[in-house]
């Protein structure tokens, strides 16, 4: 489903973030992306949703060459990808319901579909009773659930989660991982970058370890660690 062929990324300031990365992700996989800060985890995921373009190499997503995609096709690519961030990125003045509905409004979905989809997805992430709350009235774990609901409301093929548990305590993190696993079981591919070694070790999923912009380890049912 995702294919990176010999991808190198050098930023305009000369920093080489990724060198010669080749990676294949199958549909329905759950992949942990581990590595020290600055190893290139964010650069790698940014290439997938075309926030950045590779300096060399190919990025193929769902059969489409992302690099050669015209700018006006990019929004349609992003509708197939749900993004989850460490800092949630919710709109502070909109309610939980409005934050999730926003994901459908900006892609000009029909009001009828929005009214149907938003409550059911919020119920699924366990926030069925908080539709009218503002983000500041929620705990960190709940805010991250809103963020996940927003990411999946549009039925994406892929979820890219960038350290989603980075701001959460261990118990809340475990609940969140169960939610992500649940979503993964329904067929959505998930790529999650993380520093939470306990979670990685417990879940026994594929682990891709990055260091210095290179893949140093790629193991099915792997454990945390980025030493070669």
């Amino acid at each position: 489903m995702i294919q990176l062929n010999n991808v190198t990324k050098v930023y305009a300031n000369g920093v080489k973030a990724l060198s010669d990365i080749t990676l294949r992700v199958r549909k329905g996989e759950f992949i942990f992306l581990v590595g020290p800060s600055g190893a290139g985890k964010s650069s790698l995921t940014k290439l997938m949703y075309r926030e950045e373009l590779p300096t060399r190499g190919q990025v193929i997503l769902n059969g489409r060459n992302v690099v050669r995609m015209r700018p006006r096709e990019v929004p349609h690519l992003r509708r197939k990808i749900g993004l989850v961030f460490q800092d949630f990125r919710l709109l502070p003045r909109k309610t939980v319901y409005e934050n999730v509905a926003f994901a459908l409004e900006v892609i000009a979905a029909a009001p009828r579909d929005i009214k149907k989809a938003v409550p059911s997805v919020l119920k699924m992430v366990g926030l069925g009773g908080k539709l009218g709350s503002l983000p500041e009235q929620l705990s960190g774990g709940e805010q991250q659930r809103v963020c996940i609901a927003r990411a999946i409301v549009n039925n994406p093929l892929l979820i890219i989660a960038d350290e989603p548990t980075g701001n959460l305590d261990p118990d809340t993190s475990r609940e969140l991982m169960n939610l992500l696993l649940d979503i993964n079981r329904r067929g959505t591919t998930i790529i999650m970058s993380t520093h939470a070694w306990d979670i990685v070790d417990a879940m026994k999923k594929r682990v891709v370890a990055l260091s210095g912009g290179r893949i140093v380890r790629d193991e099915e049912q792997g454990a945390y660690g980025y030493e070669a």
Partner: protein
Amino acid sequence: MRLNTIIYYFREAFHSILRNNWISFASVGVVAVSLLILGSALLLVLNANHLATGLESSVEISVFVRDKASPAEVRDLEGRIQSLPEVASVEFVSKERALEEMKRNLGDKKDLLAGLEDKNPLPDAFRVKAVEVELVAPLARQFEDLPQVDRVRYGQGVVEKLMDLSRWVRTAGLITMALLGAAAIFLIATTIRLSVFARRREIEIMKFLGATNWFVRFPFLLEGIILGLCGSLLAVLVIYFGYQSLVSNLRFSLPFMELITDPGLIQLVLEGILLLGLVIGALGSMISMRRFLKV
């Protein structure tokens, strides 16, 4: 386009305008003032041209005949004038008729001319109309060379002065309008820039949610257009009512100054101003979107 998407665009645009209320107000004001000046200058030029055309078409050449000329010589002169192809009509005004007309023009002060009947100082004259206005001046020069012609008179200078005025107003109006128009575009661009900054977080989220570029841009374009239109609407109202009262006032105080009252032409001017306001608004927001809304 869905109705609720359109509602979304307008809601976002109005939210931004209200959030930046002071600068929005300022940009509307500058658009209004610049278009007001443009509109007034335009009406002034149109009216100057209108008056000039009116004057030109009524310009007559008066050819005064020498006092010593015999009736035969006068008839000969009339024939010569009539034979010129540029001449549209010739009318002979005898010295007696000229005196009568002068008496009539003086009205109750006609006693001033009493006793002049025997020693009429006025000359015989021909009133000549040219086929075209441009021919008046060369024709007048031609008449000066004819025998028995004393003096030739026509509205020298008046038409030219009016045309000069109209040219001057046009230039000054255009320069003022260009400067103020640039200021208006700049202010609208600044307003939009503030709106973009106020909503940059939202814009970022919209982009990773897969909103198209135009979905992100459109509320800002709309905001600029609304500001431009509000300004031009203000200008149009002031010009419309100002001009109406000017026309009705002048009708009494200066009845010979005939201003343009053709509603079609005035409507065209006002529509043009509205359109220009729209263009100024759109231009201002596009400048800011180009620089601050990388999508």
